[in-house]
């Protein structure tokens, strides 16, 4: 089953777990499964049907905006990572 990495700011909704597992063949399915398991996370992650602006979602380290968005395929051993958008060092 795919694993999902939860950023510190959202761990209060996942019993402080940094990683959870959730089933699904696409990023959207996986994230919806997480939101179902941990209801508090839903409105933090989604703005309607889309992922909120200051969140980046990666499958196997690749930003889903450059794949197929929430329809991006997820393999059973993939990691889906949820990361807040932050300023980079410069």
């Amino acid at each position, binding site marked *: 089953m795919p694993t999902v990495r939860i*950023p*510190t*700011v*959202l761990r209060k909704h996942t019993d402080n777990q*940094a990683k959870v597992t959730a089933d699904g063949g696409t990023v959207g399915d996986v994230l919806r499964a997480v939101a179902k398991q941990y209801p508090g996370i839903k409105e*933090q992650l989604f703005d309607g049907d889309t992922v*909120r*602006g*200051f*969140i*980046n979602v*990666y499958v196997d*380290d*690749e*930003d889903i*905006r*450059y794949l197929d968005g929430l329809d991006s395929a997820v393999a059973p051993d993939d990691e889906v*990572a949820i*990361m*807040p*958008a*932050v*300023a*980079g*060092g*410069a």
Partner: protein
Amino acid sequence: MRFDDITQAIGGTPLVGLPNLSPPGYHLHIKLEGHNPTGSVKDRVALYLIEQAEKQGVLQPGQRILEPTSGNTGIALAAICRTRGYALTCVMPENTSEERKQILTMFGAELVFSPATEGSNGSVRMAQEMAAGDPAVFMPFQYGNPANPLAHYETTAPEILADLPEIAAFVAGLGTGGTVTGVGKRLKQHDPAIKVYAAEPEYGDLVYGLRNLDEGYVPEVLDVDVLDSRIKVDSRGALEWTRRLATEEGIFAGVSTGAALAVAVRVCKRLPEGSHIVVLSPDGGWKYLSTGAYAPGDLDEIADRIAGTLWA
């Protein structure tokens, strides 16, 4: 080469092949921005930030400049400020490496520290508050100033095209987004088929420890449409490729270079065989020695140990 002052020596950096690290059938090249006068790609950006402000009349002789920076932009600004008589205040995360603090102090910059737990977000926030409260200072603001990508559009990219017109892909790290945006736009005007990839450091829990998601930040200068993909690299992966660059190619680079190199190797297989890929190395490794990134020992242990300071 002879120059009248240090600012004229900015740019014109070497593009060097990586025969030992290039995957079979591909040609990796690295643009060594550590060869700039203060040792990083930010010399280009700092000069543009100051000269554009001078041209626009928003920066007056003797004025104080205020900028959020984790080091390289600050060091570049500080050197240029010395030659032109400006004062400089840098706002930076408190866990910035000792080398950077010492160089900045030597150049006469005043340092203000933001909490380590807020990463560069904290420096941006703090600098914006300070600038709003003090109309006497000028803040170039590299995260939102079009002069930042313009420096790369007008200098970095033309140098790459002159040296390697057959370039198929470009990879650089993501900090302000200025490099990928400026270089990427110019390369795609030259040939829309050229791919542009951003390597995004995975900062670790410390930097991502926002109180809420509304504190997130996307730099205004980043044009996400120029990118063909954005790939994150963790501390271990960045360290591994930084070390391989030293041991297999004899190049001593900073850790962001390793992150970009990791992405370059990863995307090779998406490109036609025989493709030439350019990796931008923003700086050398000198300013990070005290972090322990280059110390002998087990890579996993080192990556764990320094995850909190590596990207500061």
